[in-house]
């Protein structure tokens, strides 16, 4: 059973990281966005494995169902549909990014993570419950309570942030009616063509 879980974990991890690598290396930006969806789904599966079902569902709902689709929309809106532009090359100093990321992973994060003695819940027994059972894991009910009691103010701030983001996005992306490109009607088109140069 342990081996099975390990295998599943490795598969999921490979899916997450592999898809992420495809996201950053894919030539075609639409493909990158699709790989992004794959990576998000993998993260959702990892949450399931970590027994955070609610977060897994929220991950799918928000990242896959909303953010990715928003990105695909943005790609399709900012692309010359028939022309070039869909294929993107790398930034000219991409090697800076590569070095920074590689060094960050290999020399900073990985040694820290591996060297630190983690006192996980299995090593230290969980809080004893009433009947000697370990205390129950926090569930959705606790989460909901935390939002309206302990974290009420952050919750409200997050709500305001969402509202401000919504308004801001609308204001930024709003195109004034006057600035919109004029789409000629058929009659105008014909009249235009008929005019001598």
């Amino acid at each position, binding site marked *: 059973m342990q081996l099975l879980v390990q295998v599943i974990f490795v598969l999921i991890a490979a899916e997450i*990281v592999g898809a992420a690598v495809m996201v950053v290396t894919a030539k075609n930006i639409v493909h990158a966005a699709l790989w992004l969806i794959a990576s998000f789904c993998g993260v959702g599966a990892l949450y399931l494995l*970590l027994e955070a079902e609610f977060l897994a569902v929220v991950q799918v709902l928000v990242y896959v169902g909303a953010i990715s689709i928003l990105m695909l929309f943005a790609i399709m809106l900012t692309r010359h549909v028939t022309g070039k532009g869909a294929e993107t090359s790398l930034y000219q100093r991409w090697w800076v990014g590569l070095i920074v990321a590689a060094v960050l992973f290999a020399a900073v994060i990985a040694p820290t993570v591996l060297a630190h003695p*983690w006192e996980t819940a299995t090593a230290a027994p969980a809080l004893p419950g009433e009947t000697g059972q370990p205390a129950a894991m926090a569930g959705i009910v606790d989460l909901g309570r935390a939002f309206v009691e302990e974290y009420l103010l952050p919750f409200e701030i997050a709500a305001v942030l969402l509202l401000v983001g919504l308004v801001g996005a609308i204001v930024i992306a709003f195109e004034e009616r006057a600035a919109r490109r004029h789409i000629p009607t058929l009659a105008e088109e014909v009249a235009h063509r008929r005019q001598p140069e």
Partner: protein
Amino acid sequence: MIDSVPLEWVLLVAAALFCVGLYGALARRNAIGILMGVELMLNSVNINLVAFWRYLEPHQVTGLVFAIFIITVAAVEAAVGLAMIIAIYRSWQTVNVDAVDSMKG
């Protein structure tokens, strides 16, 4: 899960995801590509939070709460970022960030 997979593995996956996202944010020319890199980084942070919650303090709710706050922030960031990209596209006719350098010294 927690008795078969050590915490380090999960953290390493998150770290790898973060670095890949960082590379994406640094190396992509396309603004939307950069945004994708940032989203990957945010996801890796979320994995960390959930992993710490599960392994270290499963009976407390803090890790989940902050993961949800990060998802909120990510959603807002995506919305505003994409709106900005569309606005940039409208005035520059491109979404390649190296073309948008009016701040050049």
